[in-house]
Each structure stands twice: as C-alpha cells, then as structure tokens.
C-alpha cells in the first residue's frame, strides 16, 4: 500500500486504477486525462473480515458483487447488499471495487461532455446544468457552481449505516466518518471528496449494528435495471414492538453526496411507526429541497419515496421480502 501511495505521489496527476468502471469512461470522454495510472488491483485489500467490536471490514478492492453476496453482508447488513444490487449491472458490479464505488464522479450530462462548460471540469467557466436540462440533478445542498448528483447506491446505505472510511496517505493512516467523506459542491465543485492527494482507501468499516431486522432500500428510476436513481432511499429502523427506537434515513440521486438528514431521523425516535408519522418525516426532509425546473418533480418524489421506504422498513422482518 505504501509503495502505491509513493508511486501515485511521485508523478503529478497520477491516479489509482482498480476496476476502472468509471475512470475508463471518463478517460474515453476526455474528462479525465491522467498522465500515469497506478494499478492497485493486486494490493492485499481484497478481504472481508470481522472486526473485534462486532463490526465488519470491507476491503477496498473487494468487488461490489462479492460484497453484496458475502454471507456476513447478506445476513448482518442486508440493506447494503440490497443497495449494491440495485446499482449498475451485473457486469459492472463484477468489475467495480468498493473503494472505487465511493470515488465515482458525479452524474451530469454536461460534466461528461467536454463541448459544454462545466465548473467541475474547468472551475469558473460556469454550470450548464443550472439553466439547462437538469432532470437528473440535485435538489439538496446545491450551489450556484454545481448541481450534479452522486450516482452511487452503495454509498447511500453506507452513510445510513454510519460506516467509516479508512485511508492511508504519505502522512499515515486516518479514518473518515462516511458522512464527511463526500463533499457538497460549494465553491469547489471540482473536489468530490475529502480524500487528500495521494491517499488511498484501504477499507470501509461497518459498525456492529446492521439494522438487519428493519430496513429498506428503495430505488426509483426511469427503467427497472441499469439506470441511476432519480431518488433512492435507505431506511433503517430499530423497533421495540411498534415503537421506533432508532432511525437512519439517507437519500441518493438528490445531492452531490449521499444525503443524510439526522434531524428528520430524530423525529421518529420514541414514537409509533405510523403512516402519519412517516408523512411528517417526508415533509420535513424535503423542506430544504430546491428544484431547477426539470428536476422539481424530485422534491415530491423524494417525499413519497421516504414514506414508502419507512413503511417497508417498519414491516420487514429479518427474513422478509423487501422493496
């Protein structure tokens, strides 16, 4: 790992490559032009292991498919398994790695087309999406510089689970809480994450509680498979009878990062799992949403999807079927 870090830091502009399912696309489109690539696929980061505190460590180079079908993930963190399998296609999941999933660039037509201005590719030239075709774009946490969305399903479940991203850089190791890993666009839309130059993701650590009894991952999209989310919702509950004792709620396809709302989560703690209560949470969550025309429907869609996901989560039992 340290030699990989050394290799990538010794060449300006060098990038790591693992599954390549996003970077190669970006290179074909001339959006990414790394002069050097450091192949990390043979680093020993390809295991899933139990942690002493009862959690689970997902190696950065384990494929998305192997993670989703791993028995510990299926049994203890089914919401993660569901989220991964809702994403991309079987072929892509077989190639894509866990670390790479976190580092997917944001989804936006203009970002991927170098003939149009884009602040993310070329800071300061302007955002084509804000007044352009923005049906797929963000409704939360946008800035006047960028309204692109993070495309991952996996990350929506990871932020809901309070995962921790472990990284190694030239100054040593550090752990980044998942909610702090991705950034909002602000004035620096070209920077997607808080990873420092040369840092490499080594693992994603899951805490002990996997919310395996009450969870839902609901993905609403334009076709049934191989389509990014218009809105997705990861909902996880701890329940004591009908009463909710803990809530996790995260949305995908709506912001520059997986969108978690802890204030809305807190609204449900200690109260009964009823449709009325879920409606109130749905409304609270979209209170801060802002549409840009084509994507304004996402506000109402997000509200409805939150309610549906919470209803599913409240109902689902460990062995139950789920949306």
């Amino acid at each position, binding site marked *: 790992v340290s030699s990989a870090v050394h290799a990538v830091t010794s060449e300006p502009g060098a990038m790591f490559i693992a599954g390549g399912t996003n970077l190669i696309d970006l290179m*074909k*489109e*001339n959006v990414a032009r790394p002069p050097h690539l450091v192949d990390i696929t043979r680093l020993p980061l390809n295991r899933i292991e139990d942690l002493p505190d009862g959690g689970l460590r997902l190696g950065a180079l384990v494929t998305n498919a192997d993670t989703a079908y791993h028995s510990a993930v299926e049994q203890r963190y089914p919401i993660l398994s569901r989220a991964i399998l809702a994403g991309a296609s079987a072929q892509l999941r077989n190639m894509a790695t866990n670390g790479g999933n976190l580092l997917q660039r944001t989804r936006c*037509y*203009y970002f*991927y*087309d*170098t*003939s*149009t201005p884009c602040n993310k590719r070329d800071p300061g030239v302007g955002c*084509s999406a804000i*007044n*352009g*075709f923005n*049906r*797929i774009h963000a409704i939360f946490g946008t800035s006047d510089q960028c309204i692109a969305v993070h495309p991952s399903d996996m990350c929506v479940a990871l932020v809901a689970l309070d995962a921790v991203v472990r990284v190694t850089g030239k100054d040593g190791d550090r752990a980044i809480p998942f909610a702090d890993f991705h950034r909002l666009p602000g004035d620096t839309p070209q920077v997607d994450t808080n990873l420092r130059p040369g840092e490499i993701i080594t693992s994603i650590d899951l805490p002990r509680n996997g919310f395996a009894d009450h969870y839902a991952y609901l993905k*609403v999209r*334009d*076709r*049934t*498979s*191989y*389509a*990014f989310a*218009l809105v997705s919702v990861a909902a996880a509950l701890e329940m004591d009878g009908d009463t909710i004792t803990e809530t996790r709620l995260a949305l995908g396809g709506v912001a520059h990062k997986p969108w978690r709302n802890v204030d809305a989560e807190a609204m449900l703690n200690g109260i009964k799992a009823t449709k009325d209560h879920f409606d109130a949470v749905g409304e609270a969550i979209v209170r801060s949403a802002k549409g840009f025309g084509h994507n304004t*429907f996402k506000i*109402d*869609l997000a509200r*409805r*999807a939150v*309610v*549906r996901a919470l209803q599913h989560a409240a109902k689902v039992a460990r062995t139950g079927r789920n949306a």
Partner: protein
Amino acid sequence: VTTAYIGQPISRLDGPAKVTGKAKYAFEYDVPNVAYAYVVSSSIARGRIKRIDATAALQIPGVLQVLTHENTARVAPAGEIVDDARSPGAPFIPLQGDEVLFNHQPIALVVAESFELARYAASLVRIDYDAADHATDLKAASGRAYVPKPRGFLPPTPKPRGDAAKALAAAAVHIDVEYTSPAEHPNPMEPFATTVVWEGDGKLTLYDKTQGVQNVQGYLCSVFGYSKDDVRVLSPFVGGAFGAGLRPQYQAFLAVLAARALKRSVKLSLTRQQMFSLHYRPFAWQRVALSAAQDGKLDAIVHEAITNTSRFEDYSEQIVPWSGLLYQCENVRLDNRVTKLDLNTPGDVRAPGASWGVYALECAMDELAVALRMDPVDLRLKNYADRDQIDRRAFSSKSLRECYRLGTERIGWGRRTSNPRSMRDGNTLVGMGMATGAWDAFQVPASARCVLNTDGTATVSSATEDIGTGTYTVMTQIAADALGLPIDRVTFKLGDSELPEAPLEGGSFTVSSVGSAVRAACEKARARMVANEQRGGKATVIDEQASTMPSPRRKEASCCCHSAVFAEVRVDEDLGTIQVARVVTAVAPGRVINPRTARSQVMGGIVWGIGMALEEESVIDQTFGRIMNHSFGEYHVPVNADVHDIDVIFVEEQDEIVNPLGAKGLGEIGVVGVAAAIANAVFHATGKRVRDLPITLDKVM
C-alpha cells in the same frame, strides 16, 4: 412446389456462427497493415470552422494524417450522388467545406497506427468556430413549417375528402388533441463501422455496416468516380440497423477518403456518442381531431403533423395517411409538414411514419371512446373498413377483425372495467389499453441466382442483407422448398455487392421481394434440371438467375398488414413507476414463412414499443443545440427487467395478390400501435392522459 420448410419454425441457420463468435462484423476483419481512423465531431450546431489546428496531433509518432475540409478534395455535386434512400436536397458529405450544419457533425478525421492513438490524437485537434444562432426546438420552429418536397418513392399526402371542419363543428361528440414525441436514435448494438481493404490496384473492398451493399457501392462510385468493378462492398453480418443503415453512413465515406489519402487499408468505427449524429426518428408534433355520432360512427378525422428536417434535405415520412386509410369516415383532412432545424437529417427508423402517426391516431381513438363512453374495441369495430379508405380499393386481405377477437380473448379484455382508476391491486393501479396497428405490404424489384451443383447441393444468392431479421434462414427455406431439396443441401449467400441486385433491406419488403426472386430463380433451375434429366442428359451444373417485379395482381388491391395490440400496465400510485405487465399482439401477416423468426421480429417490435412509450428520448439542450444524453447509460432503451409477458398471435391469411409467396413482411408491424396501447392503458390505470412521449414517472406521479 412443396412446402416442406415454409411455415416451419426453423432455428436461425446463422445462429451457431453468431453465438460462437465466428460471424464477423464490419470492424472485425483482420487486414494486414491497416490504419485506424477516428472522427472529430463538431461541438456547435451551426456556424463556420474558423481554424483547425492539428499540429499537436500530427507531432505524435504513429499519427499518419489528419483530414479536414482544408486538405480534402471536393467530391461529386449533390445532384450526382446515388443513394436509394435519400431525401430531396443536398446530402451531407463530410469535409466538403467549413460549414457546420449540426452538432456532432464529423469535421476532421485522424488516422493513426492504432485505434487508441487515433482517438487520443483526435482529442488534441483544436478547432475554432464562428458560431451562428441555431434553431433546434421543433415547437419554436413550427411556425415556419411547410409542405416538403415529396420523396420519390412515397406517395404525396392524400387529398381531403368531404368537409372535416364542418363535420367537426356539427359533431355530437368530438375531441381535438395534440401529441408530441421526441427524436429517437435507433442505436443498434453494433456501432457503424467500415473496414476498407486497399487492394493495391486502385480497387477497394469494403466491409461495411449497412442495410444495402449495392447502395453503398453505388454511392461511393458516384461520390469518388469509381466504376462498379473498382468497389466491392460486403456486409454478411449486421448487428442491428433499424433503418440507420439504409443510407450510406459517413463513416464509409471517411474510411474510403483515408484509404485513398494513405493508399492503405483503413478501419473506422463510430463511438456510441457519435451514433447520436446519425439518422433518427424525427421530433413530431401532431394534432388529431375526431368527431362521431353518439353511436360511435366517425364523422370527421383531422390529422396534422409537423416533424423536423435538416437545413439541407427535406426528409418527410408517411405519418398522417394512416388516419385516412384505417377507418370509414366521410370527412377527412390530412396535413403533413416539416420544419428545418439545425440537426442532421432524420431518417427512416423502423416503421417510419406509422410509428408516430398511428400512435397519435390510436390514442385519439381511445380519447374519443372515453368521450363516447364506448368500449375502445367496439369503437374500432363500428368504423371497421373493408376497403382502403383512401383509394377505395379492397384490401388484398385484411383479418383485423379476427385480430381484435383473438387479442381481446387472449388478454382477457372482459376483465376490464371501463372507468379509469377502476382496477386496483393495493397501491398499484392496473390499466388495460389497446390500439390498432398497420403497415404497408410492399413488394419491390429484386433478383436472385441459383446454382445447382452436381453433388445435389445448391447455392442461392442475392445482394440482400440479414440485419438480424432472419433473412439467411427464411431464404434458405424458400429455396429448399422451390428446389425440393433438404434444407441442409442449400446455402444462401447475401451481403455482397457482386451478388444479383437486391433492394435495401427495409420497409418489411425483403421476404416479399427477395423471397419472390429466390423462388423464381430456384424454380427456373429446377425446371432445367428436370428437363435435363428427362432428356437423359449428364448431370451438369445449372446456373440460373431471375428478376422479379411487383406482382401485377397488386394493382387490383390495397396491400397492408394489420395488427391489434393490447397492453396491461401496473402503475405505482405514489411513485408513478410503470410496469408493462403484458402485451398481446395479434398480427395478420399473410403467410408466415418461419413462425420462430417471425415471432422474434414481432417481439422485438413490441420491446421497441415499450421503449417508445416509456423511455426513449434524445434530449436536446437548446442552448447548445446538442443532444446531451448520448450514451447507453443515459439514453434509455428497455432492459430485460422492463419486459414481461409478451404474447404474439399470428392470424395467417391466404393472400394470392400481395406477392407469389403470400407473405406481407413483419419487420415493422410489431412496433406499430404498441406505444398507443400502452399510453391508453396508462390512462385507464391512472386517469391521466399523457400526450407527450415518453411517459416517464414524473408525468403520471
């Protein structure tokens, strides 16, 4: 003639070659000393190229040439260009000037020792433009719509009959509605590609992705001044085309240009993004006004359409005639116009005209049925036409009544409760809808050759194509029957410009046209063999060729293929997601040559219809005049998970008029009416009438 094979569900004879990778596609031929070309596309919709700077690209070792309008000779004038599928106007030919006519226009070609190098070097070509204002919005440009110059092989829009305006005003019940639909790019799986083999003696052999090898040959001859002996075009396998390969595409021209410049073999493939610069189903606006008496008898039909064309050609399609043809009605006015946009010329895409026109007509019929409180099937039966309502000729055959009957039976139309939102399953709204489909049963001139060998085998050939439709298989069936040979003794060859003349593979006329020629050639060969045997002559190779013209009996009648399409949808009441749970299509196609390939054809058409109804849309950013969702990730076509039960019923017809084989063709009919049936089912499920395709969830939520 026996029919041992015609009518049998023979598996595709080319299937094993395809699934084992033995079937080669245009880009896959190994050619020694080949160079690779990569297209540089424009990033503006309209204007002029001020400067192209290829210095940086040319400095890279291995980059051989950068072709632009500045170093490319002018080719033949527009009037001399041969293209069987062209539209009136000046066809676009790349690198002929500094003018940019549409976004993603090919404006330079980089040739290098490898594909990767060519692609990289292409990214280094710098282009400065003088951009001009562009118009790419159909609605904004509809005010300058005009009646297009007719395309030679299509009849003009039918003249009005009766007084539709008066009848509408006096009607007991009427509807007057507008529908819009987006451009759709056909996006076959195989990208357009050409391998040009430089033969060294000035001659060229091309492996090209096309629906017409002889059309490409004729085109290249007319453009570059070659004779037919100089250019051979082959296309034995085509990975889908759907109309995009009817016209010679620009990669063939550019690949030849590069081969001539370098005196070397060249390969050129378009990228998926560049596929969005090719022909497409046009943007369409339609108005349909219908009126009827209380009993459902139609009084008036008005159908107006505006589609887009390019600045340089008048492309138009047969959108509105279906409304004059399908139902009995005394007062009909049809109007078809186009408007010029700064886009490439649209083109014939699977069921051109009927796809949009029948969609609008059949949705409007559903709206009328709702207004009349009448069952939609009953409304169609009430106005059923036994004759072509435009030219008043009887149909050569028309079993549409039987299609309605079998379709309603199979889908369980009796379960349908008439009010919208009246069929529910929890928070899922269930709806059922139907539509009529129609397509022409053309026959055009074609020829074929049959060589009977002394070992009892036969080689039959014609310069037609198999674009995934099953041509290899059905032609072999027809030939085996005509020759009275076991099918494994017969080999059929196609996709080679040196073979006997064949039309473009399109319009659903390959079986009727090429099939008739194949049969005629085989019958001639067989007759000679029999005569030879009767004379007691020695076994000898018999080589016969036949050309067939449209059957003279076709003048007696109107020849059409009909279908009845039924769809059941399930709509999530809260989230608006739509599942097409079931489609039942009953098709009356004359005679079915091969029920297996026929069924595949119709199923494919239905999947297209699902995409048309719910997913497909080439989205233009009007600021840039550019299609923005130019990838398979963002331009949605149905995936397997979107496709549920599909049921295809064939109502076979004995039709001795349409052509000697009695087969009407199935390439297009499968798609016609499907989008309307789904849209009508969505209305029935939700009570929401979405009149702009595609019906995405935000429109029904």
